[in-house]
């Protein structure tokens, strides 16, 4: 019995190729969460994200970033999240660098069409520098049997005191095997300004009690070109209640 067509796989791959071929230019952090296009009513969560970059002779060596957020659904298909961002950019010390407001909007019901769609809107303000970054784009997910392909094609507009106003592009992809709720291996791909990387990731969910669960994600992304910092570690925790 044929449960998903080759045509659908080809369509998804075409989308990956299309997004990868777009000019990818972004000054900010490229390795971040790969967003799923789903929102639940009554959703509430605390979120922590961490990333660390390493390559001895690279300008981004020893860069470390952390994000702490609180999110909640504001409508049946829309959720808001507010973040505080702290970064350590060598040789400077760790400091609070900015704030971010994020809106996720679920466009289609899961499984209704050949792929599920959502949109992302983010506004980030960098502390003390009066710099801003607005990000928007499409979130897509498609099931292939026990696996899921998630794609984020994002456009970023930056402006401010120490930034040239410009539009940039970012692309994130995740191909996940839904093995067990607590352990789901995946492969991730990222493309942005001076960054092209891919690598393995592992994620899962642990339920504590009614409506209480902890989601975790860990990924090691390695450079796939010479401009990209060699290794990036990404870690995220989400406590939903």
């Amino acid at each position, binding site marked *: 019995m044929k449960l998903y067509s080759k045509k659908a796989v080809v*369509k998804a791959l075409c989308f990956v190729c299309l997004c990868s071929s777009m000019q990818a230019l972004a000054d900010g952090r490229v390795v971040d969460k790969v967003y799923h296009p789903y929102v639940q009513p009554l959703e509430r969560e605390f979120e922590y994200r961490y990333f660390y970059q390493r390559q001895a002779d690279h300008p981004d060596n020893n860069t470390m970033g952390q994000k702490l957020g609180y999110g909640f659904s504001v409508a049946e298909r829309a959720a808001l999240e507010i973040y505080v961002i702290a970064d350590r950019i060598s040789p400077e010390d760790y400091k609070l660098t900015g704030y971010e407001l994020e809106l996720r909007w679920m466009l289609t*019901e899961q499984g209704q069409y050949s792929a599920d769609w959502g949109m992302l809107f983010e506004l980030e303000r960098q502390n003390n520098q009066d710099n801003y970054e607005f990000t928007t784009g499409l979130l897509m997910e498609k099931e292939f049997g026990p696996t*899921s392909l998630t794609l984020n094609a994002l456009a970023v507009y930056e402006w401010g005191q120490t930034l040239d106003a410009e539009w940039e592009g970012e692309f994130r992809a995740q191909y996940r095997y839904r093995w067990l*709720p607590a352990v789901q291996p995946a492969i991730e791909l990222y493309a942005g300004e001076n960054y092209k990387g891919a690598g393995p990731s592992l994620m899962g969910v642990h339920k504590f009690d009614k409506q209480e669960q902890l989601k975790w994600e860990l990924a090691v992304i390695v450079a796939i070109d010479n401009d990209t910092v060699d290794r990036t570690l990404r870690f995220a925790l989400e406590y939903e209640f």
Partner: protein
Amino acid sequence: MKNIELKKRQLRKNSKKALPITALLLLTLPVVAEQSVFELRIKDHLFLPSVLYVPAGEKVKLLVLNQDPSPEEFESFSLNREKVILGKGKATLFVGPLQPGKYEFFGEYNPDSAQGVLIALPEAEWLQHKANHAY
């Protein structure tokens, strides 16, 4: 003559550019197919029926009606679905096409009582099931 050649070249160039756009448009096209609709009710923190038979190999629509005043979340890892249904509300879930087999689901707000299983039957068994339950 020169103009015609230039126009042809331009057309060839534009058709190459159109390829990825066409690919994106194809991907966004919804797959239109007639779907069977199955009703699932939530009452007194129980799923009714607690065993739901559906045909394997085709996409089905589950209409979940929450008759309780409190919200409930339909959750199933094997179906890869989670959906909150507000108190006295309803929600539509699209599942499948499924392999023949059993797919467990539960209510996240009342996991001890709200439990159920969706059974996807192969074509012959599904036709038999339908014939037995025809009225």
